[in-house]
């Protein structure tokens, strides 16, 4: 069974540009979570989607947004990129509400120059 897949693996953008990160959950999982992890730091909760709706978001500015598609895949969009947005962006999926724990993807390394 395929795990959580994220694309691209690496992404380099210049300041002010937009970045789009994609995530495909494990088959059967309807919840998708996004986390940001800056180098050497902990995971910061970004967004939680379930059944196509945003269920909760972390303490991030509105230029961080996303959506979940009918097939439960998800996109994270970051507008007006800033240097401090450089981080590993991790996507996780689970059964509704996190039952049984999360399964994480390998992440997208975003570098803003």
């Amino acid at each position, binding site marked *: 069974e395929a795990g959580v897949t994220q694309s691209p693996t690496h992404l380099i953008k210049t300041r002010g540009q937009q970045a789009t990160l994609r995530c495909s959950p494990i088959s059967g999982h309807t919840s998708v979570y996004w986390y940001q992890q800056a180098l050497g730091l902990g*995971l910061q909760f970004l967004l939680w989607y379930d059944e196509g709706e945003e269920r909760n978001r972390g303490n991030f500015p509105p230029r961080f947004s996303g959506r979940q598609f009918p097939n439960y895949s998800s996109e994270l969009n970051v507008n007006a990129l800033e240097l401090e947005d450089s981080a590993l962006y991790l996507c996780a999926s689970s059964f509704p*509400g996190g039952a049984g724990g999360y399964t994480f993807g390998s992440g997208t*390394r975003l570098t803003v120059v």
Partner: protein
Amino acid sequence: LAKTTQPISMDSYEGQEVNITCSHNNIATNDYITWYQQFPSQGPRFIIQGYKTKVTNEVASLFIPADRKSSTLSLPRVSLSDTAVYYCLVGDWDDKIIFGKGTRLHILP
């Protein structure tokens, strides 16, 4: 959301049993306790989840006392490859899960 407190770092030797304790004094009735392992530049990996008493799987055991205000992850006979950051998370199935700073476990030869 129940806040968790873990040691920032721990050292141990290969072949030893390692116990990492997590405090969660404000755990709610519906909250589960879940532990994850993370290697550098990788996503966290689910280790074990429990609600009360003891849970064991092929890689770890989780001990939860009756008051559920703490939990202990037990890793039997660790190896160098167990060097990682370990996160204790507390939450229910209908809430966002917040990761704390985790415990950096360093296994020495």
